[in-house]
C-alpha cells in the first residue's frame, strides 16, 4: 500500500494525529477547568477586577502566574503573601493608595487613582487568582 510508505502521507497523517490529540486535550482541559468549584465561582466583582487589572496594563511591570514583565513582583500569590484572609485586603489597598513612594533608588509604581469599588474588585480578582491550582508554583512564597 503506497499510502503507508510515502513520506508525504506519513507526514500528513501524523499532522492530523497531533491536531486531533490537541483538540481532544483541549476539550478535556476545558471540562476539567469547569469542575473545581472555585474556577466557576466567578462573581461579577472578580470579573470587574480582571478588567481593572487589564485596563491598567499591570502586566507591563508585574507577572501574573509567571507571565508578564519581570520588572516588579509576581502577583499571582500576592494575596496570600500579604496576609491572606487576615489582612491581605488591607495591605494591598494601603499599598496601592500609597504609591508612588518616591524612595530614591527604588523602582516606582504609578498612582492609578482607583476608586474604592475598583480597588475591592481588583483585590477580589487577586484573591481568586491566588486560589488557582498551579501545581504548587511558585516554589517560594516570595514569588
Amino acid at each position, binding site marked *: 500500500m503506497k499510502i503507508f510508505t510515502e513520506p508525504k502521507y506519513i507526514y500528513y497523517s501524523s499532522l492530523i494525529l497531533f491536531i486531533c490529540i490537541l483538540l481532544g486535550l483541549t476539550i478535556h*482541559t476545558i471540562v476539567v477547568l469547569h469542575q473545581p468549584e472555585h474556577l466557576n465561582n466567578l462573581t461579577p466583582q472578580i470579573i470587574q477586577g480582571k478588567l481593572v487589572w487589564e485596563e491598567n496594563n499591570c502586566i507591563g511591570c508585574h507577572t501574573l502566574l509567571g507571565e508578564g514583565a519581570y520588572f516588579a513582583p509576581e502577583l499571582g500569590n500576592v494575596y496570600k503573601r500579604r496576609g491572606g484572609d487576615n489582612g491581605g485586603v488591607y495591605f494591598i489597598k494601603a499599598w496601592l493608595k500609597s504609591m508612588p513612594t518616591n524612595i530614591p533608588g527604588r523602582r516606582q509604581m504609578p498612582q492609578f487613582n482607583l476608586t474604592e469599588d475598583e480597588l475591592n474588585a481588583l483585590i477580589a480578582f487577586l484573591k481568586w487568582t491566588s486560589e488557582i491550582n498551579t501545581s504548587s508554583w511558585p516554589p517560594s512564597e516570595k514569588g
Partner: protein
Amino acid sequence: MLYSSQRIAKPYFIAAITLFTIQVLFGLSMGMQYVEISIPLISFDTARLIHISLLIIWILFGFMGAIHYIIPEESERELYYPKQAIQLFWIFLSLVIVTFFAYLLLPYATLAKITGNQFFPTMGREYLEQPTIIKLGIFAILCAFTYNMTMTVLHGRKTVINLLLLTGIAGSTIVFIFAFYNSSNLVIAKYYKWWLIHFWLEGTWELIMEAILAYIIFKITGDREIVEKWLYVMVAVTLTTSILGIGHHYYWIGMPEYWQWIGTIFSIFEMLPFFFMVLFVFNVVNCTKCRSSNRALKLWALSTPIMAFLGAGVLGFLHTLAPVNYYSHGTQITSAHGHLAFYSTYVMIVLTMISYAMPLLRNTVTDKIGQRFEILAFWIMTISMFCMALFTVIAGIMQVYIQRTTDINLPFIEIQNSMNILYWLREISGIIFMFGVIIYIISFFVAEIKKT
C-alpha cells in the same frame, strides 16, 4: 528583480528598519530604569508596551516585504492587485503610527476607556495590548494581504516555497482570531491566548522563516531540488513538534498536570527544526559552484540558523523541561531567552532578506563599502545581543537561587537591587547593540548606487 510589483517590498523594508530602531531605543530606556531609577523619561509599562508591540509589528513588516518580493518571482507573474498592495502598506503604517502615539501620549486606562474596552474586553494581555479596534484593523490588513498573495499564487506558478509562504500567512491570519477571545475566567483566557502567541512564534512564523531561508539558499546555490527536499523535512519537523509543544506554556497556570508531560516531551524535539536548518545551510558552505558577490548576505544566511539553534533551540530547551521551568518560569531567564530567540530567528531572517533584496531594489549589488559596514554591523549586533542574553541569564540564575531556593527573606526589590551590576552590563550591551543598528543604517547610505 524581474517584476515591477516586487518594488513594494522596499517601503516595507524601510518601515521595518525604522520601527526596529525605535524599538531598540525603547528597550534602552527600559534598561535604564533597571539601573538608574531616578531618570524615568517614560514609565516602564509604557516603554515595555511599545517595545514588544513594535517588535511584533516591525517583524510583520519585514515578513510582508519579503513575501511581496518572493511571491511574484516564485509565481512568475505580477501581483494580482499591485495598486492595492501599496495602499495596504500606507494603511498599515498609519495604523501603527496612530497606535504608537496613542500608547505614548495617553495613559493606558484612558486609551481603554476611549476605545470602549469595557464592552468587549481584549486589552491588557501580554502581546495583545492593542485596543480592540486596532486588533480589528490588523486582522483586516492580514486578510487583505493573504487574499492578494493567494490570488497571485493561484494564477501563477506554484512552488514549494510560495505555497509554504501562503500557509504561513494564512495560518497567522486564522490564529489571530484568538486575539478577540478573552474569557472572564483567567485560566481559560490564558489557555487560548497561547494558541495565538505560540502558534505564531513557534508555528506559522517559523514556517515563513524556513521558506525565506530556503529562498535565499536557492538564490545562492541555484539548486531548487535540494532546497525543496530540505524544506519538506524542516516543515514536517516544525509542525509535528510545535503543535503539542504548546504544552510548555501550560505548566503553572492552572491547567491539568498532564500538560507537564506533554510539554516536556514535545519541547525536547522542538530543537530539531533549528538543527535541520543548520545542516541545511551547511550544504551551501560545501557548495563550490556558488560564488555570490554579496559577502554580507552569505554571512547573514549562514549565521541565522546557527544563532537560532543557540538562542531559540538550546537556550529554550534548557528551561523548557517542566522540572527546570518550575524554577525558571517568570524570571529574567525567560527575558533572556526571549531576547536571544527573537533576535536570532526573526530579526536575523528579516535582515537576511533585506541584505538580499535591498541591493537589487536599489541597484547597489556591486557595492563593496556598504557590505563592509553591514558586516561590521552584523558582528556588533550579534555579539552584543549574545552578551545581553548572557548577562540576563546570569541575573536570572541569581534571582532563582536567592528568591526561590534559599530561605533568605529579602523582598523582590532588594534581590533585584543586588544584581545591579548585571543590569548595568546588560544596558551597556544594549547601547553597543544600538551602535550596531546605527552602523547598519549607515551601510545603506554609503552604498554606491550603480547608474543604469
